[in-house]
Protein backbone atom coordinates (compact mmCIF):
# COMPACT_ATOMS: atom_id res chain seq x y z
CA UNK A 1 0.00 0.00 0.00
CA UNK A 2 2.73 2.44 1.03
CA UNK A 3 4.83 1.55 -2.00
CA UNK A 4 1.81 1.89 -4.22
CA UNK A 5 1.09 5.40 -2.98
CA UNK A 6 4.74 6.34 -3.23
CA UNK A 7 4.88 5.16 -6.82
CA UNK A 8 1.72 7.06 -7.71
CA UNK A 9 3.05 10.16 -5.98
CA UNK A 10 6.20 9.95 -8.06
CA UNK A 11 4.15 9.53 -11.22
CA UNK A 12 2.10 12.55 -10.24
CA UNK A 13 5.16 14.70 -9.76
CA UNK A 14 6.35 13.68 -13.23
CA UNK A 15 2.94 14.38 -14.72
CA UNK A 16 2.86 17.72 -12.95
CA UNK A 17 6.13 18.85 -14.49
CA UNK A 18 5.19 17.40 -17.86
CA UNK A 19 1.84 19.10 -18.00
CA UNK A 20 2.93 22.45 -16.64
CA UNK A 21 5.87 22.41 -19.04
CA UNK A 22 3.47 21.86 -21.92
CA UNK A 23 1.12 24.57 -20.71
CA UNK A 24 4.01 26.95 -20.25
CA UNK A 25 5.69 26.14 -23.54
CA UNK A 26 2.47 26.54 -25.48
CA UNK A 27 1.76 29.85 -23.85
CA UNK A 28 5.13 31.46 -24.22
CA UNK A 29 7.43 29.61 -26.55
CA UNK A 30 7.72 30.11 -30.25
CA UNK A 31 7.01 32.92 -32.53
CA UNK A 32 6.28 36.54 -31.96
CA UNK A 33 6.00 38.71 -28.96
CA UNK A 34 5.19 36.61 -25.89
CA UNK A 35 3.56 39.54 -24.21
CA UNK A 36 1.28 40.12 -27.15
CA UNK A 37 0.54 36.37 -27.15
CA UNK A 38 -0.60 36.67 -23.56
CA UNK A 39 -2.72 39.69 -24.25
CA UNK A 40 -4.18 38.48 -27.53
CA UNK A 41 -5.69 41.19 -29.64
CA UNK A 42 -5.77 43.78 -26.90
CA UNK A 43 -3.32 46.63 -26.82
CA UNK A 44 -0.76 46.34 -24.04
CA UNK A 45 0.11 49.33 -21.96
CA UNK A 46 3.71 50.11 -21.06
CA UNK A 47 3.02 49.38 -17.38
CA UNK A 48 1.54 45.98 -18.22
CA UNK A 49 4.47 45.23 -20.50
CA UNK A 50 6.95 46.10 -17.78
CA UNK A 51 5.03 44.02 -15.24
CA UNK A 52 4.83 40.98 -17.52
CA UNK A 53 8.47 41.19 -18.56
CA UNK A 54 9.56 41.27 -14.96
CA UNK A 55 7.02 38.67 -13.85
CA UNK A 56 7.95 36.08 -16.49
CA UNK A 57 11.64 37.04 -16.83
CA UNK A 58 11.18 37.71 -20.51
CA UNK A 59 14.50 39.53 -20.70
CA UNK A 60 16.31 36.19 -20.54
CA UNK A 61 16.73 34.53 -23.93
CA UNK A 62 17.46 31.12 -25.50
CA UNK A 63 16.66 27.62 -24.26
CA UNK A 64 18.33 28.29 -20.94
CA UNK A 65 16.22 31.36 -20.55
CA UNK A 66 13.11 29.36 -21.32
CA UNK A 67 13.81 26.82 -18.61
CA UNK A 68 14.79 29.54 -16.20
CA UNK A 69 11.46 31.17 -16.78
CA UNK A 70 9.65 27.86 -16.59
CA UNK A 71 11.18 26.98 -13.22
CA UNK A 72 10.33 30.44 -12.05
CA UNK A 73 6.75 29.90 -13.10
CA UNK A 74 6.57 26.54 -11.30
CA UNK A 75 8.08 28.06 -8.19
CA UNK A 76 5.51 30.81 -8.17
CA UNK A 77 2.73 28.32 -8.86
CA UNK A 78 3.78 26.15 -5.93
CA UNK A 79 3.95 29.18 -3.68
CA UNK A 80 0.45 30.12 -4.71
CA UNK A 81 1.67 33.28 -6.41
CA UNK A 82 -0.24 33.37 -9.66
CA UNK A 83 0.47 36.98 -10.48
CA UNK A 84 -1.97 39.61 -11.68
CA UNK A 85 -4.60 39.46 -14.32
CA UNK A 86 -4.60 42.14 -17.02
CA UNK A 87 -7.25 43.93 -14.95
CA UNK A 88 -4.67 44.29 -12.20
CA UNK A 89 -6.31 41.98 -9.66
CA UNK A 90 -4.34 39.24 -7.92
CA UNK A 91 -5.32 35.94 -9.57
CA UNK A 92 -4.91 34.24 -6.21
CA UNK A 93 -7.59 36.51 -4.74
CA UNK A 94 -9.93 35.86 -7.64
CA UNK A 95 -9.56 32.11 -7.14
CA UNK A 96 -10.00 32.35 -3.40
CA UNK A 97 -13.39 33.94 -3.90
CA UNK A 98 -14.37 31.59 -6.68
CA UNK A 99 -13.44 28.22 -5.16
CA UNK A 100 -16.22 27.85 -2.59
CA UNK A 101 -18.86 28.48 -5.25
CA UNK A 102 -17.32 26.00 -7.65
CA UNK A 103 -16.94 23.35 -4.97
CA UNK A 104 -20.58 23.76 -3.95
CA UNK A 105 -21.73 23.45 -7.53
CA UNK A 106 -19.56 20.39 -8.10
CA UNK A 107 -20.88 18.73 -4.95
CA UNK A 108 -24.48 19.30 -6.03
CA UNK A 109 -23.68 17.80 -9.42
CA UNK A 110 -21.97 14.84 -7.79
CA UNK A 111 -24.89 14.31 -5.42
CA UNK A 112 -27.26 14.26 -8.40
CA UNK A 113 -25.06 11.70 -10.13
CA UNK A 114 -24.83 9.47 -7.06
CA UNK A 115 -28.47 9.62 -5.97
CA UNK A 116 -29.99 9.04 -9.40
CA UNK A 117 -27.20 7.55 -11.47
CA UNK A 118 -25.89 4.89 -9.11
CA UNK A 119 -29.34 3.87 -7.86
CA UNK A 120 -30.81 3.53 -11.32
CA UNK A 121 -27.63 1.79 -12.47
CA UNK A 122 -27.93 -0.86 -9.76
CA UNK A 123 -31.58 -1.50 -10.64
CA UNK A 124 -30.82 -1.63 -14.37
CA UNK A 125 -27.91 -4.00 -13.74
CA UNK A 126 -30.04 -6.38 -11.72
CA UNK A 127 -32.95 -6.28 -14.14
CA UNK A 128 -30.93 -6.49 -17.28
CA UNK A 129 -32.93 -6.40 -20.54
CA UNK A 130 -36.07 -5.26 -18.69
CA UNK A 131 -38.11 -2.26 -19.79
CA UNK A 132 -36.46 -0.17 -17.08
CA UNK A 133 -33.01 -1.22 -18.27
CA UNK A 134 -33.70 -0.54 -21.92
CA UNK A 135 -35.28 2.85 -21.29
CA UNK A 136 -32.39 3.99 -19.07
CA UNK A 137 -29.98 2.89 -21.79
CA UNK A 138 -31.75 5.04 -24.38
CA UNK A 139 -32.12 7.97 -21.98
CA UNK A 140 -28.47 7.92 -20.97
CA UNK A 141 -27.43 7.71 -24.61
CA UNK A 142 -29.46 10.86 -25.23
CA UNK A 143 -27.83 12.64 -22.30
CA UNK A 144 -24.36 11.52 -23.39
CA UNK A 145 -25.03 12.72 -26.92
CA UNK A 146 -26.25 16.20 -26.04
CA UNK A 147 -23.36 18.63 -25.51
CA UNK A 148 -23.36 20.93 -22.49
CA UNK A 149 -23.46 23.99 -24.73
CA UNK A 150 -26.88 22.73 -25.85
CA UNK A 151 -28.14 21.45 -22.53
CA UNK A 152 -27.18 24.43 -20.39
CA UNK A 153 -28.73 27.23 -22.50
CA UNK A 154 -31.85 25.19 -23.26
CA UNK A 155 -32.38 24.31 -19.60
CA UNK A 156 -31.85 27.94 -18.74
CA UNK A 157 -34.35 29.03 -21.38
CA UNK A 158 -37.12 26.51 -20.73
CA UNK A 159 -36.85 25.92 -16.98
CA UNK A 160 -35.60 29.35 -16.04
CA UNK A 161 -36.96 31.92 -18.47
CA UNK A 162 -40.06 30.37 -19.99
CA UNK A 163 -41.60 28.25 -17.22
CA UNK A 164 -39.76 30.03 -14.40
CA UNK A 165 -39.28 26.94 -12.23
CA UNK A 166 -35.73 27.92 -11.30
CA UNK A 167 -33.83 31.21 -11.17
CA UNK A 168 -32.32 31.57 -14.68
CA UNK A 169 -29.05 33.07 -13.41
CA UNK A 170 -27.22 32.79 -10.14
CA UNK A 171 -25.65 36.17 -9.42
CA UNK A 172 -22.87 37.21 -7.08
CA UNK A 173 -23.84 35.30 -3.92
CA UNK A 174 -25.72 32.28 -5.27
CA UNK A 175 -28.14 30.49 -2.95
CA UNK A 176 -28.29 26.72 -2.92
CA UNK A 177 -31.58 26.89 -4.81
CA UNK A 178 -30.05 29.04 -7.53
CA UNK A 179 -27.28 26.45 -7.91
CA UNK A 180 -29.71 23.54 -8.21
CA UNK A 181 -30.51 23.79 -11.93
CA UNK A 182 -26.87 24.41 -12.95
CA UNK A 183 -25.91 21.54 -10.66
CA UNK A 184 -28.32 19.19 -12.39
CA UNK A 185 -27.13 20.32 -15.82
CA UNK A 186 -23.50 19.90 -14.81
CA UNK A 187 -24.20 16.55 -13.17
CA UNK A 188 -26.28 15.08 -15.98
CA UNK A 189 -23.29 13.77 -17.91
CA UNK A 190 -21.77 12.25 -14.78
CA UNK A 191 -25.18 10.82 -13.96
CA UNK A 192 -25.46 9.10 -17.33
CA UNK A 193 -21.92 7.75 -17.19
CA UNK A 194 -22.25 6.64 -13.58
CA UNK A 195 -25.49 4.90 -14.44
CA UNK A 196 -23.98 2.99 -17.35
CA UNK A 197 -20.85 2.12 -15.43
CA UNK A 198 -22.83 0.89 -12.43
CA UNK A 199 -25.13 -1.15 -14.63
CA UNK A 200 -22.27 -2.84 -16.47
CA UNK A 201 -20.38 -3.44 -13.26
CA UNK A 202 -23.37 -4.92 -11.42
CA UNK A 203 -24.32 -7.07 -14.39
CA UNK A 204 -20.77 -8.37 -14.71
CA UNK A 205 -20.43 -9.09 -11.01
CA UNK A 206 -23.79 -10.85 -10.86
CA UNK A 207 -22.29 -13.44 -13.16
CA UNK A 208 -19.07 -13.77 -11.23
CA UNK A 209 -18.13 -17.12 -9.75
CA UNK A 210 -18.22 -15.81 -6.20
CA UNK A 211 -21.95 -15.15 -6.60
CA UNK A 212 -22.45 -18.84 -7.33
CA UNK A 213 -20.44 -19.61 -4.19
CA UNK A 214 -22.55 -17.21 -2.15
CA UNK A 215 -25.70 -18.89 -3.46
CA UNK A 216 -24.34 -22.32 -2.62
CA UNK A 217 -23.79 -21.10 0.94
CA UNK A 218 -27.54 -20.67 1.13
CA UNK A 219 -27.53 -16.88 1.52
CA UNK A 220 -30.69 -15.01 0.65
CA UNK A 221 -30.67 -13.17 -2.65
CA UNK A 222 -30.97 -9.76 -1.06
CA UNK A 223 -27.78 -10.31 0.91
CA UNK A 224 -25.89 -11.65 -2.10
CA UNK A 225 -26.75 -8.55 -4.10
CA UNK A 226 -26.43 -5.93 -1.39
CA UNK A 227 -23.24 -7.23 0.22
CA UNK A 228 -21.27 -9.38 -2.22
CA UNK A 229 -22.18 -7.87 -5.57
CA UNK A 230 -22.47 -4.23 -4.55
CA UNK A 231 -19.20 -4.18 -2.67
CA UNK A 232 -17.41 -5.34 -5.80
CA UNK A 233 -19.46 -3.38 -8.32
CA UNK A 234 -18.99 -0.06 -6.63
CA UNK A 235 -15.19 -0.12 -6.82
CA UNK A 236 -15.04 1.23 -10.40
CA UNK A 237 -18.04 3.49 -9.75
CA UNK A 238 -16.48 5.16 -6.73
CA UNK A 239 -13.28 5.55 -8.70
CA UNK A 240 -15.14 7.14 -11.56
CA UNK A 241 -17.00 9.51 -9.24
CA UNK A 242 -13.70 10.57 -7.69
CA UNK A 243 -12.19 11.42 -11.05
CA UNK A 244 -15.44 13.10 -11.93
CA UNK A 245 -15.31 15.40 -8.92
CA UNK A 246 -12.00 16.70 -10.25
CA UNK A 247 -13.55 17.04 -13.70
CA UNK A 248 -16.58 18.82 -12.37
CA UNK A 249 -14.50 21.38 -10.55
CA UNK A 250 -12.42 22.12 -13.62
CA UNK A 251 -15.16 21.40 -16.11
CA UNK A 252 -17.80 23.87 -15.10
CA UNK A 253 -16.59 26.48 -17.61
CA UNK A 254 -19.68 26.31 -19.82
CA UNK A 255 -22.23 25.81 -17.05
CA UNK A 256 -20.83 28.55 -14.86
CA UNK A 257 -20.52 30.84 -17.87
CA UNK A 258 -24.08 30.29 -19.02
CA UNK A 259 -25.68 30.56 -15.59
CA UNK A 260 -23.48 33.43 -14.46
CA UNK A 261 -22.13 31.60 -11.42
CA UNK A 262 -19.07 33.41 -10.10
CA UNK A 263 -16.91 30.28 -9.76
CA UNK A 264 -13.55 29.28 -11.18
CA UNK A 265 -14.98 28.20 -14.52
CA UNK A 266 -16.81 31.49 -14.87
CA UNK A 267 -13.58 33.42 -14.36
CA UNK A 268 -11.84 31.26 -16.92
CA UNK A 269 -14.78 31.81 -19.28
CA UNK A 270 -14.45 35.53 -18.78
CA UNK A 271 -10.68 35.39 -19.12
CA UNK A 272 -11.02 33.70 -22.50
CA UNK A 273 -13.66 36.19 -23.63
CA UNK A 274 -11.67 39.23 -22.54
CA UNK A 275 -8.41 37.75 -23.84
CA UNK A 276 -6.86 37.98 -20.41
CA UNK A 277 -3.81 35.74 -20.96
CA UNK A 278 -2.32 35.76 -17.45
CA UNK A 279 -5.71 34.99 -15.93
CA UNK A 280 -6.22 32.02 -18.30
CA UNK A 281 -2.72 30.64 -17.68
CA UNK A 282 -3.09 31.08 -13.94
CA UNK A 283 -6.44 29.35 -13.71
CA UNK A 284 -5.51 26.57 -16.15
CA UNK A 285 -2.32 25.86 -14.17
CA UNK A 286 -4.26 25.59 -10.93
CA UNK A 287 -6.95 23.44 -12.50
CA UNK A 288 -4.34 21.08 -13.91
CA UNK A 289 -2.93 20.66 -10.42
CA UNK A 290 -6.40 20.06 -9.01
CA UNK A 291 -7.01 17.49 -11.71
CA UNK A 292 -3.74 15.68 -10.99
CA UNK A 293 -4.35 15.66 -7.25
CA UNK A 294 -7.88 14.36 -7.66
CA UNK A 295 -6.53 11.55 -9.84
CA UNK A 296 -4.02 10.68 -7.14
CA UNK A 297 -6.68 10.70 -4.43
CA UNK A 298 -8.80 8.42 -6.56
CA UNK A 299 -5.96 5.94 -7.03
CA UNK A 300 -5.42 5.81 -3.31
CA UNK A 301 -9.15 5.38 -2.85
CA UNK A 302 -9.04 2.52 -5.32
CA UNK A 303 -6.34 0.85 -3.27
CA UNK A 304 -8.35 1.28 -0.10
CA UNK A 305 -11.42 -0.27 -1.72
CA UNK A 306 -9.75 -3.12 -3.55
CA UNK A 307 -7.58 -5.41 -1.41
CA UNK A 308 -6.02 -6.91 -4.54
CA UNK A 309 -4.29 -3.58 -5.14
CA UNK A 310 -3.78 -2.75 -1.49
CA UNK A 311 -1.59 -5.77 -0.88
CA UNK A 312 0.19 -5.74 -4.18
Amino acid at each position, binding site marked *: MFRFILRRLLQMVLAFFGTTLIVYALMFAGQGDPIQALAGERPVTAAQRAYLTQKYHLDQTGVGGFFYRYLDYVKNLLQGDLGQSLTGRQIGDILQQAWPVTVRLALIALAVAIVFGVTAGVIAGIRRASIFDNSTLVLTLLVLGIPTIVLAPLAQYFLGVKWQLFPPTAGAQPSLYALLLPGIVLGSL*SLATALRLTR*TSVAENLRADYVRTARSKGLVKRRIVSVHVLRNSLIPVVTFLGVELGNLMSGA*IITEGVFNIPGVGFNLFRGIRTEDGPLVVGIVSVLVVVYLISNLVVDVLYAVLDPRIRYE
Partner: protein
Amino acid sequence: MSDFETVAATENQAARRGVSGEPGAPNQVGATQKPRSLAGDAWRDLRRNPIFWISLGLVVLITAMAAVPSLLTANDPRDCLLSRQHAGPSGGAIFGYDFQGCDVYARAVYGTRASLLVGALAALATGVIALVVGMLAGYFGGWVDAVLSRVIDIVLGIPLLLAAIVLLKRLSTSSDNVRLFAVIFVLAVLGWTTAARVIRSSVITAKEQDYVSAARMLGARNGRIMWRHILPNALAPAIVVLTIALGSFIAAEATLSFLGIGLKAPTISWGQDIDTGRIHMREAATPLIVPSAFLALTVLAFIMLGDAIRDAFDPKLR
Protein backbone atom coordinates in the same frame (compact mmCIF):
# COMPACT_ATOMS: atom_id res chain seq x y z
CA MET B 1 -17.00 19.59 -21.20
CA SER B 2 -16.58 16.08 -19.99
CA ASP B 3 -18.06 14.74 -23.22
CA PHE B 4 -14.68 13.26 -23.92
CA GLU B 5 -14.05 11.62 -20.62
CA THR B 6 -17.53 10.21 -20.79
CA VAL B 7 -17.08 8.57 -24.12
CA ALA B 8 -13.66 7.48 -23.05
CA ALA B 9 -15.09 5.78 -19.99
CA THR B 10 -17.62 3.82 -22.01
CA GLU B 11 -15.02 2.94 -24.56
CA ASN B 12 -12.64 1.67 -21.94
CA GLN B 13 -15.35 -0.65 -20.78
CA ALA B 14 -15.72 -1.83 -24.33
CA ALA B 15 -12.05 -2.55 -24.50
CA ARG B 16 -12.22 -4.51 -21.29
CA ARG B 17 -15.33 -6.36 -22.30
CA GLY B 18 -13.68 -7.33 -25.53
CA VAL B 19 -11.08 -9.48 -23.84
CA SER B 20 -12.98 -10.95 -20.93
CA GLY B 21 -14.36 -14.39 -21.53
CA GLU B 22 -17.80 -15.45 -20.49
CA PRO B 23 -17.65 -17.51 -17.33
CA GLY B 24 -19.91 -20.33 -16.34
CA ALA B 25 -21.65 -23.24 -17.86
CA PRO B 26 -22.70 -21.83 -21.25
CA ASN B 27 -19.06 -21.95 -22.23
CA GLN B 28 -19.06 -25.69 -22.03
CA VAL B 29 -21.96 -25.82 -24.40
CA GLY B 30 -20.38 -23.72 -27.06
CA ALA B 31 -16.97 -25.29 -26.65
CA THR B 32 -17.28 -27.59 -29.57
CA GLN B 33 -19.27 -25.30 -31.79
CA LYS B 34 -17.94 -24.12 -35.08
CA PRO B 35 -17.04 -20.44 -34.76
CA ARG B 36 -19.41 -18.33 -36.78
CA SER B 37 -18.37 -15.28 -38.70
CA LEU B 38 -18.39 -12.36 -36.29
CA ALA B 39 -19.16 -9.86 -39.01
CA GLY B 40 -22.08 -11.93 -40.24
CA ASP B 41 -23.55 -12.16 -36.77
CA ALA B 42 -23.03 -8.48 -36.20
CA TRP B 43 -24.75 -7.57 -39.43
CA ARG B 44 -27.72 -9.80 -38.60
CA ASP B 45 -28.02 -8.00 -35.26
CA LEU B 46 -27.63 -4.55 -36.76
CA ARG B 47 -30.32 -5.14 -39.34
CA ARG B 48 -32.86 -5.67 -36.59
CA ASN B 49 -31.84 -2.65 -34.54
CA PRO B 50 -34.04 0.41 -35.18
CA ILE B 51 -31.49 2.71 -33.53
CA PHE B 52 -28.99 1.68 -36.18
CA TRP B 53 -31.32 2.61 -39.03
CA ILE B 54 -32.43 5.89 -37.46
CA SER B 55 -28.88 7.02 -36.75
CA LEU B 56 -27.64 5.83 -40.14
CA GLY B 57 -30.45 7.79 -41.82
CA LEU B 58 -29.50 10.88 -39.86
CA VAL B 59 -25.83 10.50 -40.75
CA VAL B 60 -26.68 10.25 -44.45
CA LEU B 61 -28.93 13.30 -44.19
CA ILE B 62 -26.27 15.29 -42.33
CA THR B 63 -23.62 14.35 -44.87
CA ALA B 64 -25.89 15.42 -47.73
CA MET B 65 -26.63 18.68 -45.92
CA ALA B 66 -22.93 19.36 -45.49
CA ALA B 67 -22.15 18.56 -49.11
CA VAL B 68 -25.00 20.42 -50.80
CA PRO B 69 -26.68 22.77 -48.29
CA SER B 70 -28.65 24.51 -51.04
CA LEU B 71 -30.74 21.35 -51.36
CA LEU B 72 -32.45 22.11 -48.07
CA THR B 73 -32.74 25.86 -48.16
CA ALA B 74 -32.96 28.42 -50.93
CA ASN B 75 -31.86 31.28 -48.70
CA ASP B 76 -28.36 32.65 -48.32
CA PRO B 77 -27.19 32.38 -44.69
CA ARG B 78 -25.00 35.44 -45.13
CA ASP B 79 -27.83 37.59 -46.43
CA CYS B 80 -28.47 39.46 -43.20
CA LEU B 81 -30.47 42.63 -42.67
CA LEU B 82 -30.52 44.30 -39.27
CA SER B 83 -33.99 45.55 -40.08
CA ARG B 84 -35.19 41.93 -39.87
CA GLN B 85 -33.70 41.47 -36.37
CA HIS B 86 -35.63 38.70 -34.55
CA ALA B 87 -38.38 38.86 -37.16
CA GLY B 88 -40.83 35.94 -37.35
CA PRO B 89 -40.93 33.28 -40.05
CA SER B 90 -41.37 34.48 -43.63
CA GLY B 91 -40.47 33.23 -47.06
CA GLY B 92 -37.97 30.38 -46.85
CA ALA B 93 -36.96 31.39 -43.34
CA ILE B 94 -39.21 28.92 -41.54
CA PHE B 95 -37.71 29.69 -38.13
CA GLY B 96 -37.49 33.44 -38.55
CA TYR B 97 -34.44 35.66 -38.21
CA ASP B 98 -31.74 36.07 -35.59
CA PHE B 99 -30.14 39.05 -33.86
CA GLN B 100 -28.22 40.00 -36.98
CA GLY B 101 -31.29 39.53 -39.14
CA CYS B 102 -29.98 36.34 -40.76
CA ASP B 103 -32.18 33.37 -41.69
CA VAL B 104 -31.96 31.04 -38.64
CA TYR B 105 -32.74 27.89 -40.59
CA ALA B 106 -30.35 28.66 -43.45
CA ARG B 107 -27.54 29.35 -41.01
CA ALA B 108 -28.14 26.07 -39.22
CA VAL B 109 -28.12 24.16 -42.54
CA TYR B 110 -24.94 25.87 -43.75
CA GLY B 111 -23.30 25.37 -40.35
CA THR B 112 -23.27 21.61 -40.92
CA ARG B 113 -20.31 21.72 -43.28
CA ALA B 114 -17.74 23.17 -40.90
CA SER B 115 -18.85 20.92 -38.04
CA LEU B 116 -18.77 17.75 -40.09
CA LEU B 117 -15.48 18.69 -41.73
CA VAL B 118 -13.82 19.23 -38.37
CA GLY B 119 -15.34 16.07 -36.92
CA ALA B 120 -14.47 13.85 -39.87
CA LEU B 121 -10.94 15.13 -40.39
CA ALA B 122 -10.18 15.03 -36.68
CA ALA B 123 -11.49 11.45 -36.52
CA LEU B 124 -9.38 10.54 -39.54
CA ALA B 125 -6.24 12.07 -38.05
CA THR B 126 -7.02 10.44 -34.71
CA GLY B 127 -7.43 7.12 -36.51
CA VAL B 128 -4.02 7.41 -38.15
CA ILE B 129 -2.22 8.34 -34.93
CA ALA B 130 -4.08 5.70 -32.94
CA LEU B 131 -3.48 3.01 -35.52
CA VAL B 132 0.26 3.66 -35.61
CA VAL B 133 0.66 3.89 -31.85
CA GLY B 134 -1.75 1.07 -31.07
CA MET B 135 -0.19 -1.29 -33.63
CA LEU B 136 3.37 -0.58 -32.50
CA ALA B 137 2.55 -0.91 -28.81
CA GLY B 138 0.40 -3.99 -29.24
CA TYR B 139 2.55 -5.82 -31.77
CA PHE B 140 6.02 -5.25 -30.40
CA GLY B 141 5.15 -5.18 -26.70
CA GLY B 142 8.10 -4.91 -24.34
CA TRP B 143 9.70 -1.53 -23.94
CA VAL B 144 7.96 -0.11 -27.02
CA ASP B 145 4.63 -0.85 -25.36
CA ALA B 146 5.83 0.46 -22.01
CA VAL B 147 6.94 3.78 -23.47
CA LEU B 148 3.88 4.27 -25.68
CA SER B 149 1.50 3.27 -22.90
CA ARG B 150 3.06 5.87 -20.60
CA VAL B 151 2.67 8.47 -23.36
CA ILE B 152 -1.00 7.47 -23.67
CA ASP B 153 -1.40 7.79 -19.90
CA ILE B 154 0.09 11.26 -19.88
CA VAL B 155 -1.97 12.54 -22.82
CA LEU B 156 -5.06 10.97 -21.27
CA GLY B 157 -4.23 12.84 -18.08
CA ILE B 158 -4.44 16.22 -19.81
CA PRO B 159 -7.88 17.77 -19.44
CA LEU B 160 -9.01 18.26 -23.02
CA LEU B 161 -10.84 21.53 -22.85
CA LEU B 162 -8.15 23.22 -20.76
CA ALA B 163 -5.42 22.11 -23.12
CA ALA B 164 -7.45 23.15 -26.16
CA ILE B 165 -7.93 26.58 -24.62
CA VAL B 166 -4.20 26.98 -24.12
CA LEU B 167 -3.35 25.70 -27.60
CA LEU B 168 -5.97 27.70 -29.45
CA LYS B 169 -5.46 30.97 -27.62
CA ARG B 170 -2.21 31.30 -29.52
CA LEU B 171 -4.11 31.52 -32.77
CA SER B 172 -6.53 34.29 -31.98
CA THR B 173 -5.51 36.38 -34.94
CA SER B 174 -5.15 33.73 -37.62
CA SER B 175 -7.11 33.33 -40.82
CA ASP B 176 -10.15 31.16 -41.42
CA ASN B 177 -8.54 28.05 -42.83
CA VAL B 178 -5.71 28.13 -40.33
CA ARG B 179 -8.24 28.20 -37.52
CA LEU B 180 -10.14 25.26 -39.03
CA PHE B 181 -7.03 23.15 -39.23
CA ALA B 182 -5.82 24.33 -35.84
CA VAL B 183 -9.05 23.05 -34.29
CA ILE B 184 -8.69 19.74 -36.11
CA PHE B 185 -5.06 19.49 -35.03
CA VAL B 186 -5.86 20.21 -31.40
CA LEU B 187 -8.67 17.67 -31.28
CA ALA B 188 -6.57 14.99 -32.95
CA VAL B 189 -3.51 15.58 -30.78
CA LEU B 190 -5.55 15.35 -27.60
CA GLY B 191 -8.17 12.84 -28.64
CA TRP B 192 -6.32 9.82 -30.06
CA THR B 193 -5.60 8.01 -26.82
CA THR B 194 -8.82 6.04 -26.36
CA ALA B 195 -8.73 4.72 -29.90
CA ALA B 196 -5.07 3.79 -29.48
CA ARG B 197 -5.87 1.78 -26.36
CA VAL B 198 -8.68 -0.07 -28.07
CA ILE B 199 -6.51 -0.87 -31.08
CA ARG B 200 -3.63 -1.93 -28.86
CA SER B 201 -5.76 -4.44 -27.00
CA SER B 202 -7.29 -5.90 -30.15
CA VAL B 203 -3.81 -6.17 -31.69
CA ILE B 204 -2.64 -8.08 -28.62
CA THR B 205 -5.59 -10.43 -28.95
CA ALA B 206 -4.99 -10.95 -32.66
CA LYS B 207 -1.26 -11.44 -32.17
CA GLU B 208 -1.81 -14.43 -29.93
CA GLN B 209 -3.92 -16.26 -32.47
CA ASP B 210 -2.48 -19.39 -34.00
CA TYR B 211 -2.34 -18.29 -37.61
CA VAL B 212 -0.28 -15.26 -36.64
CA SER B 213 2.30 -17.37 -34.82
CA ALA B 214 2.26 -19.70 -37.80
CA ALA B 215 2.91 -16.83 -40.19
CA ARG B 216 5.75 -15.66 -37.98
CA MET B 217 7.30 -19.10 -37.83
CA LEU B 218 7.09 -19.33 -41.58
CA GLY B 219 9.28 -16.25 -41.66
CA ALA B 220 6.83 -13.59 -42.69
CA ARG B 221 8.14 -10.13 -42.01
CA ASN B 222 6.66 -8.00 -39.23
CA GLY B 223 5.32 -5.41 -41.64
CA ARG B 224 3.52 -8.03 -43.66
CA ILE B 225 2.05 -9.74 -40.60
CA MET B 226 0.80 -6.43 -39.26
CA TRP B 227 -0.71 -5.44 -42.56
CA ARG B 228 -2.27 -8.74 -43.57
CA HIS B 229 -3.24 -10.39 -40.31
CA ILE B 230 -3.38 -7.89 -37.47
CA LEU B 231 -4.82 -4.79 -39.09
CA PRO B 232 -8.06 -6.44 -40.25
CA ASN B 233 -8.71 -7.60 -36.70
CA ALA B 234 -8.15 -4.18 -35.20
CA LEU B 235 -10.29 -2.43 -37.78
CA ALA B 236 -13.80 -3.18 -36.50
CA PRO B 237 -13.25 -1.92 -32.93
CA ALA B 238 -11.30 1.04 -34.33
CA ILE B 239 -14.20 2.03 -36.58
CA VAL B 240 -16.61 1.87 -33.66
CA VAL B 241 -14.41 4.06 -31.48
CA LEU B 242 -13.81 6.52 -34.29
CA THR B 243 -17.51 6.84 -35.14
CA ILE B 244 -18.24 7.77 -31.54
CA ALA B 245 -15.17 10.02 -31.48
CA LEU B 246 -16.44 11.81 -34.59
CA GLY B 247 -19.59 12.73 -32.69
CA SER B 248 -17.66 13.96 -29.69
CA PHE B 249 -15.25 15.93 -31.89
CA ILE B 250 -18.20 17.78 -33.38
CA ALA B 251 -19.41 18.54 -29.86
CA ALA B 252 -15.93 19.67 -28.84
CA GLU B 253 -15.57 21.94 -31.88
CA ALA B 254 -18.94 23.52 -31.10
CA THR B 255 -17.86 24.03 -27.49
CA LEU B 256 -14.63 25.72 -28.54
CA SER B 257 -16.48 27.93 -31.02
CA PHE B 258 -19.03 28.70 -28.32
CA LEU B 259 -16.21 29.89 -26.08
CA GLY B 260 -14.89 32.02 -28.91
CA ILE B 261 -11.62 30.15 -29.46
CA GLY B 262 -12.73 27.71 -32.16
CA LEU B 263 -14.15 28.70 -35.50
CA LYS B 264 -14.98 32.34 -36.00
CA ALA B 265 -17.05 34.38 -38.43
CA PRO B 266 -17.24 34.42 -41.40
CA THR B 267 -17.21 30.62 -40.98
CA ILE B 268 -20.73 29.63 -39.93
CA SER B 269 -20.63 27.31 -36.95
CA TRP B 270 -23.33 26.07 -34.62
CA GLY B 271 -21.30 26.77 -31.50
CA GLN B 272 -21.08 30.48 -32.24
CA ASP B 273 -24.75 30.72 -33.22
CA ILE B 274 -25.77 28.97 -30.00
CA ASP B 275 -23.71 31.49 -28.05
CA THR B 276 -25.31 34.44 -29.83
CA GLY B 277 -28.77 32.90 -29.51
CA ARG B 278 -28.19 32.29 -25.81
CA ILE B 279 -27.36 35.90 -25.12
CA HIS B 280 -30.59 37.06 -26.78
CA MET B 281 -32.82 34.23 -25.63
CA ARG B 282 -35.23 36.56 -23.84
CA GLU B 283 -36.02 38.38 -27.09
CA ALA B 284 -36.22 35.35 -29.38
CA ALA B 285 -35.76 31.64 -28.65
CA THR B 286 -35.56 30.04 -32.10
CA PRO B 287 -32.05 31.39 -32.88
CA LEU B 288 -30.94 29.41 -29.80
CA ILE B 289 -33.13 26.34 -30.24
CA VAL B 290 -32.56 25.63 -33.95
CA PRO B 291 -28.75 25.40 -34.01
CA SER B 292 -28.90 23.56 -30.66
CA ALA B 293 -31.21 20.96 -32.17
CA PHE B 294 -28.99 20.58 -35.26
CA LEU B 295 -25.88 20.14 -33.13
CA ALA B 296 -27.51 17.73 -30.67
CA LEU B 297 -29.00 15.57 -33.43
CA THR B 298 -25.70 15.41 -35.30
CA VAL B 299 -23.68 14.43 -32.24
CA LEU B 300 -26.35 11.93 -31.21
CA ALA B 301 -26.50 10.39 -34.67
CA PHE B 302 -22.81 9.50 -34.65
CA ILE B 303 -22.71 8.36 -31.04
CA MET B 304 -25.80 6.20 -31.49
CA LEU B 305 -24.42 4.73 -34.70
CA GLY B 306 -21.16 3.81 -32.99
CA ASP B 307 -23.02 2.44 -29.99
CA ALA B 308 -25.26 0.28 -32.19
CA ILE B 309 -22.32 -1.13 -34.12
CA ARG B 310 -20.45 -1.87 -30.92
CA ASP B 311 -23.39 -3.67 -29.38
CA ALA B 312 -23.67 -5.77 -32.52
CA PHE B 313 -20.01 -6.74 -32.42
CA ASP B 314 -19.94 -7.23 -28.68
CA PRO B 315 -23.37 -8.47 -27.63
CA LYS B 316 -22.30 -9.97 -24.31
CA LEU B 317 -23.91 -7.34 -22.18
CA ARG B 318 -27.14 -6.75 -24.04
